[in-house]
């Protein structure tokens, strides 16, 4: 039963000390101000890499905000992940300028090479492949960002060497 499994895993993650400490610290930094809910979740996403049910429940409790609102925000925005992600995040810009310069083909090439679809995390948790709407470097299009490092007009060779280097 999926929900039972989730409830069990929720109980487990709630106990995660590292996560609980991070929540307490982050909420404290913003003086437990509920207006700063989105900012708090952004910081936690950066620190923890994803937002587990336990973390969301903790935030709800410490800010005095209904858990439904916390979940709505966590699931509404692209910055947040409700599931663990890969060690290396690949973002392919799909902004208009990159689009016009062949971004969709580039996504296909990368998806092909890594045997995954956009939005997915690879089985070995090595990569997460995402498409994003405009990284703001349109003259360099098409652009990809791997672990925050930008690559302009990557050739197949470039890609092979980038992915090889990402363990």
């Amino acid at each position, binding site marked *: 039963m999926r*929900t039972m499994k*989730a409830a069990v895993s929720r109980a487990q993650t709630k106990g995660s000390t590292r996560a609980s400490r991070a929540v307490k610290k982050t909420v404290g930094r913003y003086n437990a101000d509920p207006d700063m809910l989105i900012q708090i979740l952004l910081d936690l996403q950066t620190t923890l890499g994803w937002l587990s*049910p336990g973390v969301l429940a903790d935030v709800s409790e410490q800010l005095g905000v209904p858990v*439904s609102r916390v979940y*709505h925000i966590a699931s509404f*925005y692209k910055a947040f992940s409700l*599931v663990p992600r890969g060690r290396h995040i690949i973002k392919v810009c799909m902004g208009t300028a990159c689009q016009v310069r062949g971004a969709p083909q580039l996504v296909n090439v990368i998806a092909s090479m890594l045997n995954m679809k956009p939005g997915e995390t690879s089985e070995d948790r090595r990569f997460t492949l995402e498409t994003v709407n405009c990284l703001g470097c349109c003259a360099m299009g098409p652009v990809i960002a791997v672990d925050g490092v930008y690559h302009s007009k990557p050739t197949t060779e470039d890609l092979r060497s980038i992915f090889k280097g990402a363990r």
Partner: protein
Amino acid sequence: MTITLQIDGKEVKAESGVTVLEAARQAGVHIPTLCEHDRLMPYGVCRICCVEVEKKGRKRIVVSCGYPVENGLVVTTRSPRIDRIRKVLIELVAPTAMADGLLAGEMKKIATEYGADIHRFESRFTGKPIRCILCGKCVRYCDEVVGKQAIGFVGRGVDRRAVFFPEQARACLTCEACFNLCPTGKIAADTDFVVFDGFSVDDYSSGEL
């Protein structure tokens, strides 16, 4: 303060602060709605109650559930433009609203009244038949009237869903207020109070919905 406006050619008097929808009802003019409920704050998302208003020669389409009455406002509740809007809205939402190929209750009435072809976009539909139009009556009632927030929205766009939060939903067993509010009948049909299987936030997080 009393406001005087015109609805479908009829002069109507209403209290300042009421909406065009409320004024129309008081005057006996029927405007269909899907997401509106008299115990809830207007939400304005189904857009079915839209009407044409004219003010100082300028015409606009607005939703009557949220537009405050104004002196001299000229309101039209039926016209080719309005009728087309209601017809196409039902046609657009039909694939996500249907259960067993049929529309229920109020939606069925609107579809018939406006000549909507509920199967128009069926063959093109690539989404999931969630049996939900996201009117939010369940979410808003639980929040504004019951005060429990046991059911809420998650996701965005075509992935938006209304889901139960199991811990908060323990209170639902004795409540069931949202059951009768649901325009598609989904809540009454699909809710299992033990595990909220297929309807809970955990199902959303695991990608099931």
